[in-house]
């Protein structure tokens, strides 16, 4: 492999991560940074600390975390048995089920978001945390199930049979073999679930109805005000958590290229 060629890809990948981070960082730490200065006069942590200390930001951060964690938990709990059934059970109408699961990944949120809004209003779930979580499951679950079933299909069930003939009952097989063997897949699925839920804007805005203000909803609202320092600060908050999660996950899992999706 030629040095220059590899350097080219590296440069591109690095730039696409570091450039926005740097942009946000300079804006968030340099409140007095006006045209035509190339760099802020001075950098200080103060505006960022003030932003984090702000009860509105804290509320949004808390809500975002609650929603994303709840959605992640629910998605894994519901998605894992579904993925197992999809991968291993002899199913009638497998194609139809896959199509039903695949549709929400391509149909744009706007096409169902408005109808969803009416539906959740009728169910009395509009504007509630639970309502937002349930709605997040629509884009999240398909990704979780498809990821899990593609990873499970590479999983050799002989391990379970081996445990069985060694004397393990159904629960012991599940607890001592199946679960530990599925952990990497579950971790990846949970990461995807968290990422999608944490980044979701439109569904939250439509179903939350101004009452469930997560970080993306807050950011969207702040754009109208146009204060770059606050915008950059909130953007950094939104990006920091999933970045840590992704870094941690790739440390733990390694492996080849994984395509998460357009979202």
């Amino acid at each position, binding site marked *: 492999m030629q040095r220059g060629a590899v350097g080219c890809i590296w440069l591109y990948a690095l730039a696409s991560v570091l450039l926005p981070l740097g942009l946000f960082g300079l804006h968030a730490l340099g409140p007095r940074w006006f045209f035509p200065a190339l760099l802020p006069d001075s950098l200080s942590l103060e505006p960022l600390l003030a932003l984090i200390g702000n009860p509105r930001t804290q509320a949004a951060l808390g809500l975002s975390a609650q929603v994303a964690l709840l959605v992640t938990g629910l998605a894994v709990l519901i998605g894992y048995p579904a993925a197992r059934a999809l991968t291993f059970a002899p199913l009638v109408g497998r194609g139809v089920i896959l199509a039903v699961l695949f549709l929400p990944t391509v149909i744009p949120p706007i096409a169902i978001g408005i109808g969803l809004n009416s539906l959740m209003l009728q169910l009395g779930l509009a504007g509630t945390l639970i309502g937002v979580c349930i709605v997040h499951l629509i884009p999240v679950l398909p990704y979780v199930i498809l990821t899990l079933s593609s990873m499970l299909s590479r999983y050799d069930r002989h391990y379970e049979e081996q*445990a069985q003939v060694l004397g393990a009952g159904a629960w012991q097989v599940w607890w*001592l073999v199946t679960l530990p063997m599925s952990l990497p897949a579950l971790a990846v699925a949970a990461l995807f679930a968290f990422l999608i839920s944490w980044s979701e804007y439109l569904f939250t805005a439509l179903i939350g109805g101004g009452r469930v203000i997560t970080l993306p909803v807050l950011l969207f609202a702040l754009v109208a005000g146009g204060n770059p320092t606050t915008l950059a600060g909130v953007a950094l908050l939104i990006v920091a958590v999933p970045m840590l999660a992704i870094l941690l996950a790739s440390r733990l899992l390694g492996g080849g290229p994984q395509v998460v999706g357009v979202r």
Partner: protein
Amino acid sequence: MTTLTMHNLTLRYPRQATATLADLSLAVASGELVVLLGTSGSGKSTLLRLIAGLLEPTAGDIRFDGQSVRALPAHRREAVLMFQKAYLFPFLSVADNIRFGLRVRGVAREQQRIAVQQMLALVELEGLECRFPAQLSGGQQQRVALARALVTQPRVLLLDEPFSSLDTSVRRSLQAAVRRIQRETGVTTVLVTHDLEEALSMADRVALLLDGRIAAYGTPQQVYTRPPTLAAARFLGITTFVAGTLHGCQLTTAAGVWVLGAASACAPAEPPRPAVVAIRPEQITLHPTRPADLPNCVLGQVQEQSYRGDVIEYLLKVAGLPEAVRVRRPTSDAPDPIGPEVWLHLPPAALWEVRAG
């Protein structure tokens, strides 16, 4: 010590024309090592899964010491199956893998520890208890799998081609180890393989499984030298079959009249009937001139000759026989060079009748 018997076992999948296993009966004596030999798709792995309880037979029974185990689920059968791959749990250390069977049975930890040490000594892997499967070679992994299988002192040990993914030298040493450990522990064992040499060298008895049926069952010598059917004989490398009319000990063929078997075994009272006899290629002897005092001699034209190291193989055309006769002679006593024509002697005791099928 457990005897293992199968009674009229049948396994048939719903949308399948022929049964995977058809009315199969087999008895394995206590402490015996029986090798199930067969081609891939002959149903031999399926039979192991049935014995282990991973599959339900359509009909028939499996008994340990005369007691049916059909109602017992796999984890209560005490029949441990070892697969082609070791399937060591990758997240457990060697010691934890070995004690798995004791752990799920709730055996006390101290006892587990002692048993693990005994097993490690048995498979000659002392000192590796803290390693993880990924840090072991293929042969070591299979040894750990064997230790893990034996730690619970199963009634029956089932081995599904456990050596086939290993290099030749590792395979040899593991075969020897398995044979030694099986003798030491006296566990009733069924081993599945498609490798003829492995079957002959390891088995107390060999069962030849063809198309879901037992085609031959006996000691390695019996099965190798006297396969009872045409298909079994073909599987065991026999290519010379001669059809003729059998009357008592005399077989009238297109190549002449031959004498068959030991004279005492003949039943001259029977009326003549059509029959097919077979002979192993290494039992035919070659002579430059017609041996005066020997029966069953025919003249052959040499078609091909190939050097195989320990043996030389000849293809000889014999007048009256539709197919060329294959002959293997040890290199030390093979006529080399060979003339264009040579006399073949087929010893009466080496000829036996094979049934069709």
